[in-house]
């Protein structure tokens, strides 16, 4: 196996490992995937609060079920902070 092939394989393996620890996070129109497995919902809310302007009132749901802030994320899950509904019309 050439050095180039080895590098490519290492890169792929590293990519797979990263993908295996990724969690999808949604808030309103925003979505991102990040290496968050093992973190709590509260950790993620705090980390993204300013960047996404997440409301403290936003309910956290993990794979469609409402969860406590202490819930620990598992790779492959989807965490959504439910953006408050638009009020006017």
């Amino acid at each position: 196996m050439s050095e180039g092939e080895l590098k490519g394989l290492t890169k792929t393996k590293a990519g797979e490992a990263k993908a295996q620890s990724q969690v999808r996070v949604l808030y309103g129109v925003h979505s991102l995937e990040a290496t968050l497995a093992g973190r709590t919902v509260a950790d993620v809310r705090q980390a993204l609060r300013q960047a996404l302007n997440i409301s403290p009132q936003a309910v956290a749901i993990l794979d469609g079920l409402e969860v406590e802030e202490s819930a620990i994320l598992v790779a492959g899950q989807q965490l959504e902070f439910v953006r408050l509904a638009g009020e006017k019309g």
Partner: protein
Amino acid sequence: MMPDRLDITLIGIGGIGCALAPFLARYLQSERQVTTEDVRITLVDGDDFESKNAARQSFETLGNKAKVKASELARNFPGLSLRAVPEFVTPANLPHLVKPGDLVFLAVDNHATRGMISRHCEGLSDVVLISGGNDLTDGNVQVYVRRDGRDITLPLTRFHPEIADPKDKSPAEMSCEELAVASAPQLLFMNLSVASAMLNAFYAWRAGRLSYGEAYVDIMEGRVQPVARAPRHGESGR
């Protein structure tokens, strides 16, 4: 297979409702040429159109919004059956306005009314409730579908404490002074985006391909994000 009769109720003829109504009517009239479906549209709003609303709302004359808009639509789309209910929604008139089998477009400007109507729909065997709301440059659409007495998607109140336990009041509960207070600024383009998203959800439902229960819209980001809102194992799905 769609029913032979479709009763559609549009509640709230403000910025979103004004943007939605003519396109809904045009679509339904054109559909009538290829189906035998009997469509009846009921417009509900207790508010009067005033010239100060003209930046976002289109009415040919001053007067009650439901009556004026129903009259306009009846003239432009003679193949449709239209009626107006010039009232705000209250617990007393709600059972007469939203009945089993109805399809409801909810385009009001307060969470109190959204919560009241969603809870009412939870008690109906079959209903489709498509609700839209916006702030200045973003908003959302929620689609609550019940079929054969079970939730297919989740009620508007689920995951939305601001609707389940609203801090605002419905217009029927407000004093004249409260009604006169200027509300938060809105943008016509945002009303239009939410109206369009509501009609898109309607079309997807009619096509049997509705795959989401909520969609977020942000015109500054140029994005729409649909999200599933299905009852999960262990939830009532009543």
